[in-house]
Each structure stands twice: as C-alpha cells, then as structure tokens.
C-alpha cells in the first residue's frame, strides 16, 4: 500500500480548499482494470487459554497459532478461478495445518446458469449461528476455540449449479464425497460419551467412521428460492448424512447416519426489523420408527427470529429454536442410556447484541445461547478493533456452563476460554 507519511505530508502541506482529487489521490492510481490477479491475504497470531483445567486434556491452551492466508482470483476468458488458502502452525495440536478454503472454477452456462466447481464454502438458510437446512460442513472446533467466525463454515469439494429463472431460482449442490462437520474429537476439547458416562478425550482422538466413497453416498442439496416484494421464500431438500457423528456402528464406533431433509424458510421486513422463520424435517433413513438406539431419530426443527436496530449502531437479534425429536418414547424405551438422551423438545433461545462505535472501528458484540430445557448456555462476547486497513485485533471469550454434563453446551463447561487474535492484512 501507499506510504502514510507521504499522504500526511500532502494533507498537511496543501491548503484545504485546493484538495483537488488529483492532489489527494496523487500517490495512488485506480488500479488495473482487472484487479483480479493480485495476491492478498493476512497473517494472524492467535492465543487462547482455558479459564480452568480440563482434567482430561494436558495444558490450558485452546488457541496458539500463526496463520497465513493467501488468496487471489484469475479470469481467463469467461472463467473465473478462485484460490483462498491458509497455512498455520498450530501449537495446540503441535502440527502444521493447511486449510484450502477455495479452489474453484466458475463460469456461466447459457445465459442464466452459474456453475462453481471445486472446493468452496457454501451457506444458505436464515438462522444466525443456528442451522436447519444449511447442511454444509461446519467447524465447531474453530468456532469454540475463538478463530474468526469465517471458520465456522468449513470448505467442501462440491459442484454448485444455480439456475436463475423468473418463476423460481434453483440452487443445486452436489458433494460427491460426504463432508462431515469438524466435530469434537477430544484433542482440543473433551466431549461427553454416554458409553463412558462422562466426558472423554480419547487418544488417538475420535475419528468417526465415514460413509464409503460411493456415488450413492454423495450429498445432494437443493434450494428453490424466490424474492417477491421484499419477502424471501425458499424450499430446501437434502439427501446425505447427519453431519455430526451421532450414530454408532454395530461395533459401537461413532459414525454418521443416513439422513434426508426437507424444509422451508421465509425472511421479510416486519416493523422496524427483519423477521425470519424456518422449518426442517430430518428423516433418519435407517431408524424411521426411532427404535434403534444406535441411530438418531427423525427430528422436526423450527426457528423463528427477529432482528432490529434498537438505536443507531446498536442491533438486537432474538431467535427461538426448537428441536423436536420424534418417536421419543421408542428412543427412551430402547436406549441403554435413557438418562442421557435428548429431551423430546429441546428449546434454544439466542440473543445477539452488536454495538459499533467510532465509525465501525470498534465492534462490541455478545451472542448468547440459552437452553431452558437442557439447562445450559453458551456466551460469546467479542470485541473487535479495526485499527486501519492493515491491522486489526479481536479479543473474546467462549463461556459454557450447564446443569448436566451430557447436554450440548454442558459437556463444554471445562472448555470455557478467552482468546486474542492480531491480524495484519496485506
């Protein structure tokens, strides 16, 4: 970038009235027509620590890494090639890691069909950090460890085809080889195991059995969507697997159960804010009557939310989320551990408060999850300071607690942590 001293010199040496655009911007040009093939990215250092000890995990460190992001884009002819990748040294897991977030070739077929082939991050649905019909892979370990929100969405290898038509837009995504969530493995955070009756941190870390790499085990996701006079309607369908390893093989190893889902969503302005509602039905293909204790039951999910700007620069978001486990009686009757099974109705309330000050230089936010049925919660306070176009600092905490060890946030009570990240953009 340009040297600030030169600009400061220019600014201070010119009388205000003669700040013609040429003077002010004289050390810069408008960039090439094709800004594409330039490299950019960031270098980030992150440090995070548990508040207390997790007796199952050596060391308190939850985040200790240096990360280098590199990205670019090329546009040969009618194609666009995108690249975005991270290399990081992770001291918590004591290894170098690579995270290829984007390597795609995109083009337009015909007039109204966009195709994006390759490794990519995909998102749809209306929830804020709550997912129903978005069954693209997520990385909860990164999320809980305090990496940037971006990393909650993991990349997957997929073919994405979107057809835009006046009646309805059709969005289709095919992931040939199943991409699970990045789930809790016991490496960074311990997790609850019903078999053990408490938290575990297995060594080697949990590695769930993934579906075989056959064509029929690919993931198919479909979204039909349309916006009519400020209202966004969508219908969703999915064929694949539960994204978390919440099933067991016959030899009691963690695995992913086959699943279909069907859902719909609506988002529209209402009063001073935005209202959203989303439903989804999860069809657990191998346990439709709910009697197999190794396989999750069918589920009905419902979400509604409202977000509005309560005052200038202060935004409030509220969500209610319901997970209704079907055939719950059959689940309890057949379960070897009925005391650890999910309630028939799991209620979750979330609240997002965002306050921006100093023209967005400072962002103070608090995201809260609270489940009155599971009696657990998760608080995510984050403070972000964007000093300039190069430097930013983010500090935050992930606070978990719960009455029981077997609930989603309850199992993470020893994982509560605070972190800080410093990032330099280039």
């Amino acid at each position, binding site marked *: *970038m340009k040297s*600030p001293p030169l*600009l*400061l010199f220019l*600014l201070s040496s010119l009388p205000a009235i003669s*700040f*013609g*655009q040429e003077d*002010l*911007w004289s050390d*810069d040009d*408008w*960039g090439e*027509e094709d*800004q594409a093939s330039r490299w*950019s*990215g*960031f270098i980030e250092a992150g440090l995070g620590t548990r508040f207390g000890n997790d007796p199952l995990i050596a060391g308190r460190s939850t985040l200790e890494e240096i990360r280098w992001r590199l990205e670019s884009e090329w*546009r040969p002819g009618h194609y*666009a090639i995108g690249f975005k990748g991270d290399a990081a040294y992770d001291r918590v897991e004591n290894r170098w890691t690579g995270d290829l977030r984007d390597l795609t070739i995109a083009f*337009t077929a015909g007039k109204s069909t*966009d195709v994006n082939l390759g490794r*990519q*991050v*995909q*998102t749809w649905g209306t929830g804020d950090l709550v997912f129903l019909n978005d069954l693209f892979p997520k990385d909860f370990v990164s999320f809980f460890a305090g990496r*940037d*929100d*971006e990393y*909650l*969405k993991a990349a997957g290898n997929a073919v994405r085809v*979107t057809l*835009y038509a006046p009646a309805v*837009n059709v969005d289709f995504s095919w992931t040939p080889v199943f991409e699970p969530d990045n789930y809790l493995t016991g490496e960074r955070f311990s997790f609850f195991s019903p078999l053990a009756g408490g938290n575990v941190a297995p060594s080697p870390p949990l590695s769930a059995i993934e579906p075989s790499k056959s064509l029929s085990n690919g993931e198919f996701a479909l979204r039909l*969507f349309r*916006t009519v006079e*400020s209202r*966004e309607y969508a219908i969703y369908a999915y064929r694949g697997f539960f994204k978390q390893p919440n099933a067991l093989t016959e030899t009691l190893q963690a695995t992913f159960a086959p699943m279909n889902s069907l859902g719909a969503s609506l*988002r529209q*302005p209402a009063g*001073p*804010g*935005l209202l959203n509602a989303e439903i989804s039905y999860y069809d657990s293909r191998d346990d439709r009557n709910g009697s197999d204790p190794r396989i999750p039951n069918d589920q009905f999910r419902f979400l509604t939310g409202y*977000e*509005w*700007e309560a005052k*200038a*620069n202060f*935004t409030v978001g509220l969500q209610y989320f319901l997970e209704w486990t079907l055939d719950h009686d059959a689940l309890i009757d057949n379960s070897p551990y009925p005391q650890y099974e999910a309630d028939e109705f799991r209620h979750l309330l979330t609240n997002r408060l965002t306050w*921006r000050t100093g*023209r*967005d*230089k400072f962002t103070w936010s608090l995201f809260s999850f609270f489940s009155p049925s599971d009696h657990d919660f998760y608080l995510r306070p984050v403070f972000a300071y*964007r*000093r*300039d*176009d190069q430097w*930013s600092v983010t500090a935050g905490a992930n606070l978990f607690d719960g009455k029981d060890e077997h609930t989603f946030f309850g199992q993470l009570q020893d994982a509560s942590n605070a972190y800080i990240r410093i990032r330099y*953009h*280039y």
Partner: protein
Amino acid sequence: MKNFAIAVVVSLLLGTGAAAQDTADADDIVARANLAAYYSGDDGRSEVRMIISDAQGRQQRRQFTVLRRDISDGGDQQFLVVFSQPSDVRGTTFLVDKHIDSDDDRWLYLPGLDLVKRISAGDKRTSFVGAHYYYEDVSGRHPGDDVHELVETGDQHYVLRHVPKDPGSVEFASYVTWIDKTTWLPMKIEYSNASSEVYRRVEVLEVQDFQGHPTVVTSRVSDVQGGGQTDMQFRYIQYDLGLPAELFSERSLRNPPRQWLERAAD
C-alpha cells in the same frame, strides 16, 4: 416550438440547464435536486474511492463500483455496490432495492462465509463501511421523510432547511442544503443537532458533465465536531448503459456481473 418544449421537459427531468425560477417552492426544488443527485439517466455506473481520515489523521481507503438502475424518475431504484479494496472487504457486495412508499430492502454478501445477510431497515444513518458517509447517503434520503422550507434564494443557490418528520429515527434536528440553481445539485449540506450546532457537513468539491448530466466527481463529508473526514472521488462514470433489472438480485451479490463492472474502452 414543439422541440423547444420537449427540450425544456427533458432538461427539467434530467436536472440540467433549465433556467431556475426564483419562485419555485421548496418541495419542487427538493424534487429536482433529488433527480439531479440520484436519477441522472435511466441507469448509471461509477467507480468510487474513499479516503477516510480520522481525527488523528490516520487514513483508510475503500474502492468500489456502483451500478444503479431507476425504475422511475424520482421513484424506486436499485443499486449494486461491489468492493475491490481493501483486501479484507474485496468481494463484498451490497444490494439496495430503494422504495419510495416503504422501507428499502438491503442485502450484504460476505464472501468468506458465502453469506447473504439482510440488513434491517432502521439501520441506515450509520457509517457505510467505516466512512463518514452513511448507508442512506449511498442511495439517497427520501424527500418525503422531511419537511422542506426555502430559506433563501441567492444568485447561485437555493438555500433550504429540512426538518425530519420522525425526529426519533435520525441523529439530526435539521439540515440546511445549498442547491445550485443551474445544475440543481446539492452543493453543500450542513446537519445540526438539537442545540443548533453544525456537526456534519457534506460538500461537493467538483462537478463534471457526463453525457449531458452534471455529475459530482469529488465530495467530502466532515465530522465538524469530532474531527475527521471522508473524501470521495467518482470516476469512469457512464449513464444509460441499459442495465437489466435482473442484475439487481442475489445472483449479482454472489457473482458480480463482470460485463457491467468493467470499464468502457475510452
């Protein structure tokens, strides 16, 4: 004679050249200024860059391209904003469906998350990507949101004072606009707080003619009380490109329309 009449009507609609009538009433002046500032041509394209300077003199930059399409002159409009700089906002896009008789619909696309985020209606007199400009300055404030009063008719400018109909929805108590009598462009706007102190100023520093439309090419927003300012420069301006309505959709948020974003060969 007929041609002359058409020429007058056209120039009034486009906000160019018509000899101003000193008797014009405030609402009429505001309507013409609104057309001149936001509705030139049936559509338009401009590249924009901003230098945001804080009170300590530290600077940030933004660069983006704006596409605009009018559904009707003085009526509903569509805007698409595609960022190219700095690196952490590159690829971010912003879509506005501006409505005259209801709240605007606004979406932001965040490429890192592949997330189409909708922005609630209230959230408009807040900083646009860290600048002293507000979201509302990008697409224009609805003339119907304020009560307008002609304060002074000078040689070059109409001076108008505007008071919000809903004072709770905005941070200002009133603002005063200096509107050029020839081009109808608002050349200076000063916002005052409840104690009648000016705390924010928007100034046009340079105007150029593109395809017969006088167009702001340099402007500045100053934080009069806190210090700091945002300088804004517009280039590669074109009108009447024939932008299709479908351009202003989720498709363009995710996949910005290169065909329309590229600079025309000069």
